[in-house]
């Protein structure tokens, strides 16, 4: 068996898997869009209730510059919230993992805290940082991202494969060596599990925080204002843009995971 004959089918099967995974989703999406379009025309649904997908696309084209500039501000906030939340979450996880005895107590506390509706803090943060400041939005998103990242990373750092633990123990490895060579690489997949949840939460956090006021051109503000003015096609177009943003951020996290933890995507030999 040469290296080439092992590597070649592996790469092919990855591409095959991606196509196989995406294809049904695209198909279902297309069917839903067509049904939506037909329903609007067949039942003569008014645009303020539910505009047809074609109308939303048309509005998207018409108001593209408005939506794009709003999306730009929102994207910066989403990325800022995700990064800040992830960074603090990872730092907190390391601190908790160092004190293994108290880890479970802390995790229970964090679980209780994470039940609080963080977006409810948005008006408070507006008062603290100023309604038009980016920071008031980022803070909401960061707190929402913090919890899943912190919990997942802590669990990842604490769960060491028993054989890896025995091996490192038999080698009389130091705590530091165990941390760097076993705990941290072993926690990377968990970190990304948390980040994938966090990516979605960051978009939700920013958009909802923007409903409570913000710089005039932000997606959340655009959604709230256009709805208030009954410009529903514009509202829907902005919602579509926000959904797209959510997808892109989610995809970016998956892409980074592939780069940072390629071993997770190596298919098994059998």
């Amino acid at each position, binding site marked *: 068996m040469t290296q080439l004959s092992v590597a070649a089918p592996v790469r092919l099967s990855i591409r095959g898997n991606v196509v196989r995974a995406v294809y049904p989703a695209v198909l279902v999406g297309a069917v839903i869009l067509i049904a939506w379009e037909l329903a609007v025309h067949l039942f003569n649904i008014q645009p303020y209730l539910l505009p047809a997908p074609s109308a939303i696309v048309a509005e998207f084209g018409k108001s593209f510059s408005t939506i794009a500039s709003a999306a730009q501000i929102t994207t910066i906030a989403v990325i800022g919230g995700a990064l800040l939340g992830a960074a603090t979450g990872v730092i907190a996880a390391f601190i908790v993992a160092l004190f293994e005895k108290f880890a479970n107590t802390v995790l229970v506390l964090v679980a209780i805290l994470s039940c609080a509706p963080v977006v409810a803090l948005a008006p408070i943060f507006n008062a603290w940082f100023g309604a038009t400041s980016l920071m008031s939005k980022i803070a909401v998103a960061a707190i929402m991202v913090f919890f899943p990242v912190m919990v997942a990373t802590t669990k990842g750092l604490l769960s060491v494969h028993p054989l*890896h633990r025995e*091996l490192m123990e038999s080698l009389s490895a130091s705590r530091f060596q165990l941390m760097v060579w076993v705990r941290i690489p072993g926690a*990377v997949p968990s970190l990304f599990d948390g980040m994938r949840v966090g990516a979605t939460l960051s978009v939700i956090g920013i958009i909802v925080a923007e409903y409570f006021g913000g710089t005039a051109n932000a997606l959340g503000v655009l959604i709230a204002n256009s709805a208030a003015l009954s410009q529903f096609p514009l509202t829907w177009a902005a919602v579509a843009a926000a959904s797209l943003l959510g997808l892109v951020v989610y995809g970016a996290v998956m892409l980074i995971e592939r780069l940072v933890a390629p071993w997770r995507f190596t298919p098994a*030999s059998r």
Partner: protein
Amino acid sequence: MTINTPVTDARPAISLRNVTKTFDAGGGLVHALDDIDLDIAPGAFVSLLGPSGCGKSTLLRVIGDLVKPTEGVVEVNGRSAEAARKAREYGMAFQAPGLMDWRTIRRNIELPLQVQGVPRNERRARAEEMLELVRLTGFENHRPRQLSGGMQQRVAIARALAFQPKLLLMDEPLGALDEMNREYLQRELLRIWRSTGTTIVFVTHSVSEAVFLSTEVVVMSPRPGRIADRIPIDLPYPRTDETRMTEEFYHAESRVRTALHSVLEPVQVG
């Protein structure tokens, strides 16, 4: 040659006195090991053989200081098992490969050397040597998941041998391999043992494997784990595939089998 001939009046490499181990298994105390006395001479190849539940894996872990005995004393080369472990005298291989997914095959083999702070070039050279030994040259940059179970186990053995430990503790390391790979690695293991003078303690439940490899087979009985019989194997080294077909081999096997059956019989009668 002389290096592997047990010298009776020399200090034993491993010495166990009145070793007892009880586990609290929820429902009550389990006597995994009961009053074990065992001396293993330097350079010996000793197999621990017995039905499942006879405590052979526990005994191996007690020698390796991964499990503390409830009572009794374990000495390795004249000092405590803990001191020996801290002096990094143990190489271990387990039933499952326990490779680290995030490391390439080469870096998995390098791990024990890395723990000991061996410089990079030397690590790399040793890993190449070990890969050649287990016939996996060309796979150094593969990930564990790309290898079959048998190949992974060979990597795990290479990892255990990488730093030429004074003591090799092996817990059924060949159990998952197919017959051809198993017999090949048995021969390789003998070759390595004879060239290095390493003391090997080897857990197995294969009679023929124990006979082929060992200078002595220790037969254990279950519940509580006790040493039932110690059978020296006088077959001359080097042992080859032809050895397996000799009358002497058959006789040695029969002796071990008889001892093993006497361990099992009382359970059926009583």
